[in-house]
């Protein structure tokens, strides 16, 4: 800690810090206990995955992109294969479109519950943290049962999906949703009413709508500031144009609003899963042959748990793509942190950072 003037200090937060899940370095200027300015320094988990994708075949990249990050692991290959299918002009089978929605929404519920749990942990309410993680365990079990894995579910392939539901797994998923619904309702009640949560999250880490538009933030961070943008509605993919997707918005732009957007979205996802199971058509789950990807360029985007995920793919007709570039939802959301942190108390830094649900592995690739 260095005192540069009266009551003015500069402190480091990170890159390794008890309250941060992943390494990121915040250079924080303080006046007393109040944050005056923040400088974010990144790069601690930069692995050069973007370069690596051009050294692997397109089919290997479906596997590689799943390993960029754990929490939104399904969204990466999902968007990558969408870009491939666009170049090759492929239409996936109807059943595959629904199965893609099911995989994405299961991952979304687990991801949101994790973030809500960490919020409770950071407020010091560890009982609620453990409760949220226990509820999340229902979805972890679902993933293990349906896909054979708890994080990287390997559900996507070019031209469809790599898994299918039968009577047994459908019954398991339905039972899990029945078990999850009252648990989530009880959690939502706590997050809405509990004094500890409210005191540490309401009015904290404010982001105005104008600031949100300037920073180009996406996902729950944007929707908590009143920006009605959800890729599933604005540019439907898979089976979302045949499903009723609700995108809840709030206007306060504080930590609590961002948490409540995630809480409400869990309910939306549960409903989407039920609708998919009801409407799931019969038929193949993928195209019969592994398609060749010709030369071309395409853009893909999907609504990952943290917001809009964008992929750019340029191919030359060879097995290796010429360029793969992606922008994860956390990438623009980091830039909103200085606005949220200015004027905040030092004790709220970790809570505010967690409220953008940051993914460092995704951001730095």
């Amino acid at each position, binding site marked *: 800690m260095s005192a540069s003037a009266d009551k003015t200090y500069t402190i480091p937060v990170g890159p390794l810090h008890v309250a941060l899940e992943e390494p990121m370095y915040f250079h924080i200027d303080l006046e007393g206990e109040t944050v005056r300015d923040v400088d974010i320094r*990144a*790069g601690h988990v*930069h692995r*050069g995955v973007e*370069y690596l994708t051009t050294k692997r075949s397109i089919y290997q990249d479906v596997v590689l992109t799943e390993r960029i990050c754990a929490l939104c692991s399904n969204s990466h290959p999902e968007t990558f294969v969408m870009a491939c299918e*666009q170049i090759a002009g492929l*239409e996936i089978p109807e059943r595959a479109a629904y199965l893609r929605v099911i995989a994405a929404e299961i991952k979304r519920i687990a991801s949101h519950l994790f973030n809500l749990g960490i919020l409770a942990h950071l407020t010091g309410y560890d009982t609620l943290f453990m409760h949220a993680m226990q509820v999340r365990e229902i979805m972890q079990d679902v993933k293990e049962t349906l896909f054979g894995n708890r994080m990287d579910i390997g559900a996507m392939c070019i031209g469809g999906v790599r898994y299918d539901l039968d009577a047994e797994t459908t019954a398991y998923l339905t039972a899990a949703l029945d078990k999850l619904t009252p648990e989530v309702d009880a959690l939502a009640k706590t997050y809405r009413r509990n004094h500890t949560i409210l005191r540490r999250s309401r009015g904290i880490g404010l982001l105005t709508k104008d600031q949100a*538009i*300037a*920073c*180009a933030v996406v996902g729950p961070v944007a929707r908590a500031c009143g920006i009605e943008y959800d*890729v599933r*509605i*604005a*540019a*439907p*993919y898979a089976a979302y*144009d045949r499903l009723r997707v609700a995108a809840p918005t709030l206007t306060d732009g504080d930590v609590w609003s961002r948490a409540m957007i995630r809480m409400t979205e869990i309910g939306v996802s549960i409903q989407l899963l039920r609708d998919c199971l009801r409407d799931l058509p019969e038929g193949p789950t993928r195209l019969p042959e592994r398609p060749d990807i010709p030369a071309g*360029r*395409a*853009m893909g*985007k999907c609504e990952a748990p943290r917001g*809009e995920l*964008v992929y*750019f793919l*340029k191919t*030359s007709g060879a097995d290796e793509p*010429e*360029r793969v*570039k*992606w*922008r994860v939802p956390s*990438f*623009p959301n*980091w*830039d909103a942190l200085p606005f949220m942190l200015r004027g905040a108390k030092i004790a709220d830094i970790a809570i505010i950072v967690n409220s953008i649900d940051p993914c460092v592995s995704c951001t*730095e690739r």
Partner: protein
Amino acid sequence: MTRLLEDIEARLAAAAPGGIDYSSTTSPHGAVTAWCGMANSEDLLSVGETLLRLGARLAMISALQPPAPEEEEEEEEPAEGEATAEKPAKEVPTTFGGTPIDGKSYEIDYHFVLGGDFLTVIAYLPAGGSISSLTPLFRSANWPEREIMENYSLVIRDHPNPRRLFLDPSIDAAALERLIPYSTLVNAASTKALWDKVLAAKGGAS
């Protein structure tokens, strides 16, 4: 649901006096993906202003070095009497706007989202070229432009904070333009131990 305007091509053409190469495709779900190559990369700020007024969001910037087309094998079938005819000098193909595709030139793609649709504005730059920063118009250009500057030897003019973003300052510039051995990349010690073991197992040859 907002969609790309009917007259978006005319608006972009008006903003880019150097000329544009516009094309678009519509997915079966109705989502439009549009591409707009600019003949003159100096038109970027004017095109950016037009898009800002339309409420576009800058979602991502991609930079790449398109590889030079592979040389095709010459078919050696000299006709009689023409065996000594001079071969014409190979012409380097060029992009829209005349930037040579020689493996050293750059393409920068500015991916905008308008409503739910993509509009990608493409600037072509020769080796050693420079381009204006979009940060005066779009705050979200800041980090992507910093990342481009550390990955390529491209100059982005008037960037407010041209520091490294992810790579440490001790790493040589233009990381994506160089071949970096994996062991160097991960800062790993490289030993002959395994090789020596293989040789020993084979009977200590050499």
